[in-house]
């Protein structure tokens, strides 16, 4: 056992030495526009009340870190200086930016996380994973097959995805989602205007609408599930050319909101929210 433990320790040390640590801070303006380039790895963007950008983390052996900028614009990232390298540059970075900074991140296959941002954020990645928490500016995310999770967004949210699943929780700003195969799950207690479009993904909406909000859903063969409280049902306009439509909620009320679903051959099902009866949470006796 001692030998195994020693071997594991040696392997861990070798791995650690194969990485180069990064620690950098530089001054910028409060609403700086920052561009981050990370082909692969992990980047987390956080905010603080300082007019500077702080970066801590590491880059993989063979990759190099770069950073620079001024009051209005800055950029940082990880690149592969070796022309003959066949792997993507890789890094693991935590970037802290001024609260109102605008952040653009471009990746190929990376885990991207942002939290508590007030400026606009724009994220582009082919694969990996994207998580956005508490965003108060415009959020724009484009991916081919990365799963995307957004929770707590108050500004406009625009998402384009291919095969990755999209999870949206407590998104109160205007929402536009488009996917090819990726499913879309929208939950919240104040659902705003939304336009959801998917070719083959499943769409699930579970929550309560903001008064007067309009949600439009369109699928080719993706099934659609709508869950609302039975005493708070928006006007439902459900249609599918080749799929089954079942409505256990009735027509609904325009004053509550409006949901229009159109599908080529996907099924559409509307019913009461699980665990919620007439607006009150069910409790065990």
């Amino acid at each position, binding site marked *: 056992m001692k030998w195994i433990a020693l071997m594991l320790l040696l392997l861990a040390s070798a791995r650690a030495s194969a990485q180069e640590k990064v620690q950098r801070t530089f001054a910028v303006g409060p609403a700086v526009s920052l561009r981050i*380039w990370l*082909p692969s790895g992990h980047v987390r963007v956080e905010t603080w009340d300082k007019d500077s950008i702080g970066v801590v983390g590491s880059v993989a052996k063979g990759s190099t870190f770069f950073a620079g900028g001024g009051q209005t614009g800055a950029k940082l*990232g990880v*690149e*592969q*200086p070796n*022309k003959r*390298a*066949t*792997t*993507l*540059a890789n890094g693991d970075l935590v970037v802290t930016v001024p609260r109102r900074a605008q952040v653009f991140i471009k990746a*190929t*296959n990376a885990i991207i996380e942002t939290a508590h941002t007030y400026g606009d954020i724009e994220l*582009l990645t*082919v*694969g990996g994973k994207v998580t956005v928490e508490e965003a108060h500016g415009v959020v724009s995310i*484009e*991916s*081919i*097959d990365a799963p995307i999770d957004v929770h707590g967004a108050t500004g406009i949210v625009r998402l*384009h995805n*291919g*095969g990755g699943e999209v999870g949206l929780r407590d998104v109160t700003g205007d929402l536009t989602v*488009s996917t*090819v*195969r990726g499913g879309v799950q929208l939950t919240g207690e104040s659902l705003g205007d939304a336009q959801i*479009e998917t*070719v*083959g993904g499943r769409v699930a909406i579970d929550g309560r609408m903001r008064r007067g909000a309009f949600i439009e859903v*369109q699928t*080719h*063969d993706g099934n659609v599930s709508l869950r609302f409280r039975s005493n708070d049902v928006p006007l439902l306009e459900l249609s599918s*050319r080749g799929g089954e439509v079942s409505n256990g909620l009735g027509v609904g009320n325009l004053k509550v909101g409006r949901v229009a679903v*159109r599908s*080529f*051959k996907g099924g559409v099902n509307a019913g009461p929210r699980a665990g919620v009866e007439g607006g009150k949470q069910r409790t065990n006796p």
Partner: protein
Amino acid sequence: MTCADTDRHFDEWLAGTLSESDARALEAHAAGCDACGPRLDQASLPGTLPTEIAPPATLRHEVLAAIAQRRRPHRRTRWLISASGIAAVLAFALLQQPRQKHASDRDNGAAILYAMDRARAEFEKLDAAEAEVAVALRATPEDRSLLRSLEDLRRQRAQLQKLVREAAS
């Protein structure tokens, strides 16, 4: 942006040389314009690229050969359509290479190949959906709902192609 601006910047937009902010402004205008929207969508479809950035014949052959290793025989037609789309995007990306100066751009070769690989299933799905709508349209050619569906699918294809292009730009 106006329709006149779209006319002026259309070629640059198509070639990917328009600045990011101008491209976004142009696309935002086109999204709400009945004249410019279809023009941009149509231009993004495979087979409608200008000849100077159309894929060379050998490149298409190479991509098809690589794809053929994985494809199922009864999907040959779909693959040809998908592959031509992918090949167009690849050609576009490769033509961008001489203009790239930053060291990080060296990652683009791997990025575009990775993006193409990941996008393949999505192009296939779009092909299948478009084929189904086209069959339904044969029975009812004037069906507005179907025509709109087909238009939406083509727009989604254009979005996906743009995304693959952006991965390499």
